């Protein structure tokens, strides 16, 4: 319990996380407005306006996860202090994931609500919130393995923004196996998102358990 409180406090006091969350939410608001404006001009942008903005703002959640995980490895190498206080690595990793999920959940809910409620997609709200939270955890897991912010962001954004859409457009069957399909089609991609996130978390926990700090 103390560990959970400590981890939460560490996350809450990171200015970069606050800024990322705020920027993500603001960007989502702008995009929702753009979709609504296009709709009212009679030239809708093609996708479901309740979910489409989230396809872009999920990048903010990936970054949120990356920054949360990488903060331990940045200058000063906080991870050594953390491990001194909490030497059992696997429970620590689990608590870290739970703390990040608890922190992300309200941000994800607020962001998802911003775009799905005005577009009349309230039914998507729980699914979108869960998706954004899982995406954050996946980002944190990948960054926990990579341990550096910029390479982790490049890798994640490449998969989510470039490779994912290209694969879905050319090989329709691949959509069910990609981690980001749920952003555009929750009913189809949910299983893949959950599987990818759990796999990434397991990999991160295993490497964290075995690797030098």
């Amino acid at each position, binding site marked *: 319990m103390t560990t959970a409180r400590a981890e939460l406090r560490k996350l809450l006091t990171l200015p970069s996380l606050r800024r990322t969350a705020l920027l993500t939410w603001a960007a989502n608001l702008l*995009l929702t*407005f*753009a*979709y609504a*404006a*296009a709709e009212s*001009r009679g*030239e809708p*942008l*093609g996708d479901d306006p309740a979910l489409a903005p989230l396809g*872009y703002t999920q*990048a*903010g959640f990936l*970054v949120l996860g*990356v*920054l949360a995980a990488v903060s331990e490895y*940045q*200058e*000063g*190498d906080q991870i050594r202090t953390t491990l001194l206080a909490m030497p059992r690595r696997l429970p620590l990793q689990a608590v870290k994931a739970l703390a990040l999920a608890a922190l992300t959940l309200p941000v994800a809910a607020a962001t998802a609500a911003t775009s799905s409620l005005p577009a009349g997609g309230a039914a998507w709200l729980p699914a979108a919130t869960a998706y954004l939270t899982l995406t954050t955890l996946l980002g944190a897991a990948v960054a926990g393995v990579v341990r*550096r*912010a*910029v*390479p982790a*962001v*490049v*890798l994640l*954004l*490449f998969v989510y*923004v*470039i490779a994912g*859409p*290209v694969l879905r*457009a*050319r090989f329709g069957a691949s959509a069910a196996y990609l981690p980001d399909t749920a952003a555009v089609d929750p009913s189809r991609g949910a299983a893949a998102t959950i599987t990818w996130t759990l796999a990434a978390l397991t990999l991160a926990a295993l490497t964290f358990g075995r690797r030098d700090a």
Partner: protein
Amino acid sequence: MVSLVRAELRKLLGLPTAWVGLVLGTLLAPVVVLLNAPYTRRAIAAGTLTDTSDLGLRDLGIGLIGPMVLGVIVVSSEYTSTGKDAPGARQLTATLTAVPDRLRLLAAKTTALVLVVAAQASVTAVVTLTLTQVLHGEHVPAPALTRVAAAVLYWTLTALLAYAIALITRNGIVPLTLLIINSSVVSVSYLLTKVTDLAAYLPDIVGARMFIRGADFPVAIAPVTAGLVMTAWVVALLAVGAVLFQRRDV
């Protein structure tokens, strides 16, 4: 100056992330042309794809992640801490000790970046367009040399744009996230052109008009004007970045 540029080139090419950008950026466009080949053939045969003059050139856009990564890490690598045991130490301190004149340093950095990105863009453009000719040669006219040069210029300006934003933010994540999201299949700038026609003058949208002719566009802009507008964006942001770099503490 030559030795400065050589040093900056060596620093840039010594970064593992730079190689990720180089490899991804160079391979993506040709791979997409290959993947799209059966679909494009069918579309040409069925007559749904009538304007084939942009084919190949349009596919180059997907590789832009390469110049973006290169432009950002030229700056961000100077600001990340150098090692676990010296948390406050940044490469920039060593760089400025060697080259105290900050504007000269920026000039050398810019030159090194332009050289690397222009080389990458030329290779990518030649490979992608040759591949398009081999695959669909009978339907696609070989693009004029000026259009290929404009595409290389677009890549270089995009790298400089990323570099300028990184100079202003002094951090790699913000510009990378913004720019990569904006290079997605349906870019945010493109969405904005649906809201206001002014968005047609955003750098990434206007720059593409230098070499793409497709009609899907709200405002008619001539290629040379488009190049000038994008260059103006880059010059303005670079000027802000240079002033900040000159005046801020390390």
